[in-house]
C-alpha cells in the first residue's frame, strides 16, 4: 500500500494545564475518508487543528509526530506551513456564517486564496472563482460571485467554503462538522457534494463529526475519541456491526435511538 497521506503518531496537545489530547495516533490513507468521532470536549477538533498547527493559544502541541506525505509538519518553518494550509491541506470549518468576512464578496474571498498561494493573478483568480462556484453547484455562479456572505443561505455559504477549500487542489481536506449547522435536507445535499468531489478528485478526507448518521454515509474508517484519546478504530462496517469499546456502543445506541429507549405515550 502507498504511504498514507497523513500520519499522526502519539500526538498530545495541552492548554496550559493537563493535556486535552493524549497520545493520539491515526493514519489517513490515500483517497479514503477517516471519520474522527466524538462528543464535545473529546478533543476531536483540537486534534484536527493541531495537524494544521492552528490550535488557538494557549493551546500547544506537547509531543508526537504529524507527517503529511512524508513531511514532518511539526518542524516546518511558518512560511512552509502557510504554503500547505489552504493549499495541500484545506479546511472546511463548522460555522459557515462566521468563517467568511462580511465585507468582501464571496468571489474575492475565493480569489484571495488563489492569489495568496501564488496560483493566479487577480483577474485569472476571479474567473477561476466562478468555475469553482459552478463546480460546487451554486446556481448562477457568474452573478453570485459578486454577492456578499449575508446574501447567501447557510447551505450556499457551505458550498462557497467547499469551493474555497478546493481552490488550490488539496490532496487532504479536513472537514470540521461541515453540516452540523444545516437543516437536514441541506445537510444531505452538502454530503452528496462532498462525496462527489471526493470521487472526482481523489481527495482524502478527515471528517470531524459527532453524528454517526453522517459517519455511516461518508466514512471508510472510523476513529472514536473520548476524553482526549482514541478508544476504538476500525473499518466503518466493523465499528457499526461489532463495536468493541463500551463508549462506542453507547454512542451507537444513542444514535439509533435518540433520546434513549422508546417511550411513546400509549
Amino acid at each position: 500500500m502507498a504511504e498514507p497521506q497523513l500520519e499522526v503518531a502519539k500526538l498530545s496537545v495541552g492548554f496550559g494545564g493537563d493535556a486535552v489530547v493524549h497520545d493520539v495516533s491515526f493514519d489517513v490513507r490515500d483517497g479514503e475518508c477517516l471519520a474522527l468521532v466524538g462528543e464535545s470536549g473529546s478533543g476531536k477538533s483540537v486534534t484536527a487543528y493541531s495537524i494544521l498547527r492552528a490550535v488557538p493559544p494557549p493551546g500547544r502541541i506537547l509531543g508526537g509526530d504529524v507527517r503529511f506525505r512524508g513531511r514532518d509538519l511539526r518542524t516546518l518553518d511558518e512560511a512552509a506551513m502557510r504554503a500547505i494550509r489552504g493549499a495541500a491541506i484545506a479546511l472546511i470549518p463548522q460555522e459557515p456564517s462566521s468563517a467568511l468576512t462580511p465585507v468582501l464578496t464571496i468571489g474575492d474571498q475565493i480569489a484571495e486564496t488563489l492569489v495568496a498561494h501564488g496560483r493566479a493573478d487577480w483577474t485569472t483568480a476571479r474567473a477561476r472563482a466562478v468555475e469553482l462556484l459552478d463546480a460546487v453547484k451554486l446556481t448562477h455562479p457568474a452573478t453570485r460571485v459578486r454577492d456578499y456572505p449575508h446574501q447567501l443561505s447557510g447551505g450556499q455559504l457551505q458550498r462557497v467554503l467547499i469551493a474555497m477549500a478546493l481552490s488550490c487542489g488539496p490532496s487532504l481536506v479536513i472537514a470540521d462538522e461541515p453540516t452540523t449547522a444545516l437543516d437536514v435536507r441541506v445537510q444531505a445535499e452538502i454530503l452528496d457534494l462532498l462525496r462527489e468531489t471526493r470521487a472526482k478528485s481523489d481527495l482524502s478526507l478527515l471528517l470531524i463529526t459527532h453524528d454517526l448518521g453522517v459517519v455511516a454515509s461518508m466514512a471508510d474508517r472510523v476513529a472514536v475519541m473520548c476524553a482526549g484519546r482514541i478508544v476504538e478504530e476500525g473499518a466503518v462496517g466493523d465499528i457499526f456491526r461489532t463495536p468493541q469499546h463500551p463508549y462506542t456502543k453507547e454512542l451507537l445506541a444513542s444514535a439509533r435511538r435518540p433520546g434513549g429507549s422508546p417511550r411513546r405515550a400509549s
Partner: protein
Amino acid sequence: MPLLEVSHLTKRFNRRRGWFEAAHVTTAVNDVSFSIDAGETFGLVGESGSGKTTTGRCILRLVEPTSGQVRFEGEDVLAFDPDRLRAARRRMQIVFQDPYGSLNPRLRVGAIVEEPLAIHRIGTAAERDARVDELLTLVGLEPAMRLRYPREFSGGQRQRIGLARALALNPSLLIADEPVSSLDVTVQAQIVELLMDLQQRLRLTYLFIAHDLRLVENICSRVAVMYRGRIVEMAAVSSLFGSPRHAYTQALLSAVPIPDPSVRPHRIQFDESRVDITAPLTEVAPGHWAALGSG
C-alpha cells in the same frame, strides 16, 4: 376537552429593511390549528424558519399573534388581560433551547429557580427556600448546588436548572423548544429520560418543538410537520413516520442520515412548484391529516 387548542393561529411580522423602503410582511405562522390532550407529548417539527418556534411563543403570548385563537384549559388565552395572562402563565411554561443564554449569569442557581415563585408572590421566604431544594432534587441536582452560578455547570446540568425553574409554579403544559438540540447525544438521552419521568410524576403535557425527526419519532405520541409557516401534515407518530403522505414530509424523512453504513437511503426531492402549499389539511386516514390539495 383538549388541554390546549390552537385554531387558525397566524403571526405576521412587518419588517422595514431601510428607512425609505416599504414594510415587508413575513407570515411566520399561517393559519395553524392543532390540539393537545392532557398527558400527551405533541411534537412540532420543521426546518429553520418554518415557524415552529414562533408558534410556541404565540401560545404563551411571548409574541402576540396577529389572529387566531388559543384555548388553554378551555379559556381563551388571547382575550386575557395582563393579570389573567400572568396567572395563566403559571400553568404554561417554556424551556428554551440554549442552556447557556437562557439563565441569568449573575444570579445563583437558587435565585434563578426561586424567581418565578418570588414574582408570583408564592409562599414565605422559608417556604420558597424549601421549594427550591425540592425542585433541584426533582431534576436530579443536589440542593447544595443552589449556591453556585450557571457558568459552573455543563450544558446538560444547565438544562436541568432551566427545567427546575419552569416547574416551579406547577405548570400543566410545558413548551419545550429544542430542549436537547445543543447537547451531546449521550446527554440528550439523560435529559429526555428526565423529561419523560417528570411527565409521569407530575402529569405534564408537552409541546415538544424540534428539528430532530428521529428524536421526535422516539418520544412523541403525535406530530405536526411545519413548512413555511403552515402545518402540512399531522398524525400519530407511527402513522406519520410509517406512511408519510405529504411530499415535503417524504423529502424531509428521506434526508435524515441513517446510522447504518449498509443502508443507502433513497432520497426524495421536494419540488415546491408542483405542490399547492396553501391546500387545507384533510383527513387522509383516521387521525392522519395532510395538505394534499386536489392532486
